[in-house]
């Protein structure tokens, strides 16, 4: 575990003789530190072992599930993983920096289209095409990030929304039709079985979770959080916020591209009107991430697993009714749980206040 978040342990020597730190001759507080029980910021070894055990168990179940699943179940499980990857990708930038990416479907769609074009038109192997999908999306984000990351708040959200719409229109243009199939769309065959797609998506989920954990427990991640907290204060504390935002934006886009690419392999058919649907592919990951907890590692996973399962259960019984769910959940979150499940538990100290959670 990265040592960056650790506070000084109780045995630490006092600060004497460290650079220009105030000397310890200074009058110190009336309450001795040892008298006050303060939970540590780093999980205790047993807690970490418990966490690792739980994680291993979940992974084991995820690996074993296809053995017992019908194709219908497998498709459902794939979609759960897809939403998990999407919510995590969105969270990696927006959850940490507080910049609401309202054009998330643009990243997903670009990844999906890049995958399809590289497989169908360029004859790439699916894995190479998938990496290409991540790369193209990251490149796109890197370029537009230079412009859109200069605006804040609602203006950023609107700019991103506009970009996603622009991409939808672009894919339907006549002069890219030889590549994208224009308004009619294009189909692709990767040769992957449903089971293989499932495992590929599982690998992407694990990869994003691992990277998010690394970021969350690093100084880089801590500094991303300060952008969400108060960007001006962060900059006068010596943090180059624009550069930090840009890096997180590009990493998030790369993973979004991977997620969208595998989604293309799964659906086997893409058209601008079915891919770039903001109300579905942008809002759902946002609601999932917000429900679990923005800027956390496990929150988006928790949110995606629970909400995707809930939606499926309700959808199976009442067609159309599931459309209502996310609206209701959104209202519920805003009213009662604005910080999300994980941070809510941390505030009550039912979960340790560690950042890798």
């Amino acid at each position, binding site marked *: 575990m990265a040592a960056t978040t650790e506070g*000084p342990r109780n045995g630490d020597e006092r600060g004497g003789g460290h*650079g220009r730190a105030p000397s310890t001759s200074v009058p110190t507080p009336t309450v001795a530190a040892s008298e006050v029980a303060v939970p540590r910021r780093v999980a205790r070894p047993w807690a970490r072992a418990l966490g690792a055990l739980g994680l291993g168990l979940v992974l084991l179940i995820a690996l074993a599930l296809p053995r017992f699943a019908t194709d219908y179940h497998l498709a459902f499980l794939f979609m759960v993983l897809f939403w998990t990857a999407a919510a995590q990708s969105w969270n990696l930038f927006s959850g940490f920096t507080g910049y609401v990416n309202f054009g998330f479907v643009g990243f997903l769609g670009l990844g999906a289209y890049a995958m399809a074009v590289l497989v169908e038109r360029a004859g790439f192997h699916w894995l190479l095409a998938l990496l290409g999908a991540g790369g193209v999306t990251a490149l796109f984000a890197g370029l537009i990030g230079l412009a859109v990351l200069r605006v804040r708040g609602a203006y950023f959200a609107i700019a991103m929304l506009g970009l996603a719409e622009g991409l939808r229109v672009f894919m339907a243009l006549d002069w890219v039709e030889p590549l994208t199939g224009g308004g009619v769309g294009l189909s692709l065959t990767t040769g992957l079985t449903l089971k293989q797609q499932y495992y590929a998506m599982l690998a992407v989920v694990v990869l994003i979770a691992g990277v998010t954990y690394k970021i969350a427990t690093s100084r880089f991640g801590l500094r991303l959080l300060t952008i969400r907290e108060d960007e001006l*204060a962060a900059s006068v504390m010596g943090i180059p916020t624009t550069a930090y935002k840009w890096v997180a934006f590009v990493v998030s886009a790369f993973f979004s591209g991977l997620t969208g690419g595998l989604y293309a392999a799964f659906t086997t058919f893409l058209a601008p009107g079915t891919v770039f649907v903001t109300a579905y592919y942008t809002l759902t990951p946002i609601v999932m991430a917000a429900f679990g907890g923005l800027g956390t590692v496990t929150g988006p996973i928790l949110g995606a697993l629970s909400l995707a399962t809930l939606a499926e259960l309700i959808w199976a019984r009442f067609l159309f009714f599931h459309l209502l769910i996310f609206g209701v959940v959104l209202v519920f979150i805003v009213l009662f749980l604005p910080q999300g499940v994980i941070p809510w538990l941390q505030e009550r100290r039912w979960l340790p206040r560690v950042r890798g959670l």
Partner: protein
Amino acid sequence: MAILELLEVSKRFGGLQAVNRCSFAVEERTITGLIGPNGAGKSTLFNLISGVLRPDRGRILFQGEEIQGLKPHQIARRGLGRTFQLSRIFPKLTLWENLMVVTEDAPRARALLELAGLWPLRDHYAYELSFGQQKLLDLIRVMMLEPRLVLLDEPAAGINPTMRNRILEVIQLLNAQGTTFLIIEHDMDVIMEHCHWVIALNFGEVIAQGPPEAVRTDEEVLRAYFGG
């Protein structure tokens, strides 16, 4: 020697000349007070010095080098820190993290937390602190930059006398250890007791400067505050 020097600095917002050809120097190792009625341009001046705003005209020298075109984070890294009138701590980070964000110097962070009496609270979220404690956190967080000069925008305003004295005590101590302070303050008693030098501003211009006793009785300053 002057650690900070402003030369003919001007800033205009639309029709308002917020800062007008402002020139003054802050001597090293002093606590210098910046006073003036509301709207005199004090906070704007802080924003200009710290890079939050760019001056329209004029030069700002920090340790002999021009800084007026630099970004806020670049200026901070050179050792010029600032706080805001309302504390801008990071509310949902712990106290410890609030300091670690700036630099991962654990011994320094611990010494500062102990100095402020906040060490026992280090694992609390910053929003869980009282208003006065937040101001203290704000003050020690900026000290994590190992700044040579710190601009404090009303560090002791609006809090109870005990906490206010504590903050002023901390400032005095840090000053004794070598940090220069430029402080915006409305309380004349605070100015008289703690400042070595005072600069008075009105309508964006320096109207008087000197030792506290001299500035307090300066006619222009009295006119600015009381009219007449």
